């Protein structure tokens, strides 16, 4: 049942960019980081003068954004390539994954349906894409058992993607026959009409596992409270900060912010894509370094460093 074996995770205890475990001097990333920080200590060239840019081909005030963007892309791609080459990357197990497996496992044990709610935003929202990646893997978990997987949908554009993901999940588990197209249901674009429809499924189909991943708004608490009422195990994940309190209060397990994307990376077909988690971790480490340095320099009255992070 576990979708990712520990072999795939390539667990290894040493870490690449934490000084406690590696030799700082020999680590290429510390060199890059050091050079980068030195570079930023040069006075920022961004003048933010109010000039007319409607005829020019580059916005000089966004030079800093260009540098940060290229740097971040490079880090992500570098780690993905590294993972592809088979270098071991340690990634801790994400608790949210266990929660999903446990919920689905319990539902299939009891022969009750699984409900997957992919948020209420369109497929051009990254959170919805992440939800779709998770959906395919949930379908794979459910496929072996004859329990239905209901996917109510709020935006028509998500319907084809969800259908494909579920179908593919069932096929990957060797049960293409078990796929029922009628279980991927478009309900309504209107937020509360959608919530009413999903509540209806919860009350009458009595799913045992409610998985809610994606971009949620006010309907989050309606779904989570109704789900609680029906006694389902609920796992929710969103990067919409305003709805996290309600999921935390009413669900059994909540996947917070970046963990949603991490979970989807874990579950995506290629475990190698986990390299991106490593890249994003390095970015966070750099951000912490920058914040500390920035605060110290700001305290000393040196503002040129901070100015690099100013965006008009």
């Amino acid at each position, binding site marked *: 049942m576990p979708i990712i074996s520990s072999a795939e995770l390539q667990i290894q205890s040493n870490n690449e960019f934490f000084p406690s475990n590696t030799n700082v001097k020999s680590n290429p990333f510390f060199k890059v980081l050091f050079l980068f920080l030195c570079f930023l200590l040069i006075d920022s060239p961004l003048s933010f003068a109010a000039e007319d*840019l*409607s*005829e*020019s*081909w*580059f*916005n000089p005030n*966004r030079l800093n*954004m260009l540098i940060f963007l290229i740097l*971040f*892309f490079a880090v*992500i791609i570098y780690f*993905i390539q590294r993972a592809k080459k088979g270098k071991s990357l340690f990634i801790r197990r994400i608790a949210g994954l266990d929660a999903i497996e446990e919920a689905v496992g319990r539902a299939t044990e009891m022969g009750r349906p699984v409900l997957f709610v992919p948020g209420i935003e*369109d497929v*051009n929202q*990254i959170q919805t*894409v*992440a939800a*779709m990646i998770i959906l*395919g893997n949930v379908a794979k978990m459910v496929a072996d058992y004859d329990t239905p997987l209901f996917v109510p949908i709020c935006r*028509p554009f998500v*319907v*084809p*993607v969800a259908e*494909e*993901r579920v179908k*593919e999940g069932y*096929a990957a588990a060797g049960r293409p026959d078990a796929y029922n197209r*009628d279980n*991927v*249901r*478009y309900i309504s674009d*209107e937020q*509360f*009409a959608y*919530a*009413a429809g999903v509540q209806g499924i919860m009350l009458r189909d009595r799913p045992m596992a409610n998985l809610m991943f994606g971009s949620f708004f*006010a309907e989050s*608490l*309606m779904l*989570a*409270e109704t789900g609680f009422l029906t006694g389902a195990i609920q796992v929710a994940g969103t*990067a919409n*900060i305003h709805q996290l*309190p*309600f999921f*935390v*209060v009413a669900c059994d397990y909540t996947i917070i912010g*970046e963990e949603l*994307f*991490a979970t*989807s*990376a874990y579950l995506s*077909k*290629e475990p190698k894509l986990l390299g*991106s988690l490593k*890249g994003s971790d390095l*970015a*966070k480490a750099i*951000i912490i370094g920058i914040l500390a340095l920035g605060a110290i320099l700001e305290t000393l009255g040196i503002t040129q460093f901070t100015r690099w992070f100013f965006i008009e």
Partner: protein
Amino acid sequence: MRREIPIAICFLVGISFILEYFIPHEDVLSIFETIRQWAIIVIAFAYVLGIANLVRINSHVIQRKGRDWPYKIILVVSLFFMITVGIIFDIFGIRLGGIGEGTIFGWVYFHAQYPLQATMFSLLAFFIASAAFRAFRIRTFQASLLAVTAILVMIGRVPVGESLWADFPDFIEWIMNVPQLAGKRAIMIGAALGAISTALKVLTGLERTYLGGE
């Protein structure tokens, strides 16, 4: 080819939108503006798929006389009723057709859809109370932090706070501006990095599961 072309399109469109961020030239901006308008059109076409899905699934239930089938008839009829009075009447120039005030569509909106939506929304007043009652138990330290902060902020949102302690509103401001803000900021930074790397994987075709199987 069935996968490469879509991925190529995804990549090209995505990269050009990233580049557009750095190009202030007005000609470029107006081209991109047009492309953004295209996205709206494409999404409008997809709506037909949504309606078809809704009608297909519900008519299956009605045909089989499945559970709650009479209610499914209400659903399908109300859907087609809205489309008929909104578009068909308008095309044939029948009075009270179209949308806006003074049309059948408008009446249904103001006397059925709006009250239904607003009432669904207001159910949250009850749900938030029952969720608070059930979940805010001082079981663990984390749960206590959650519960105590919620109660303090709730007191601070109503004038009771000031009568208990004159500086209460300032204290709530402090909670909002220090721990609340710091937590949000960290989630925001992390989630944005996660979203950007997911977006990058999608653009470069490393993550292509959304396209479905062969």
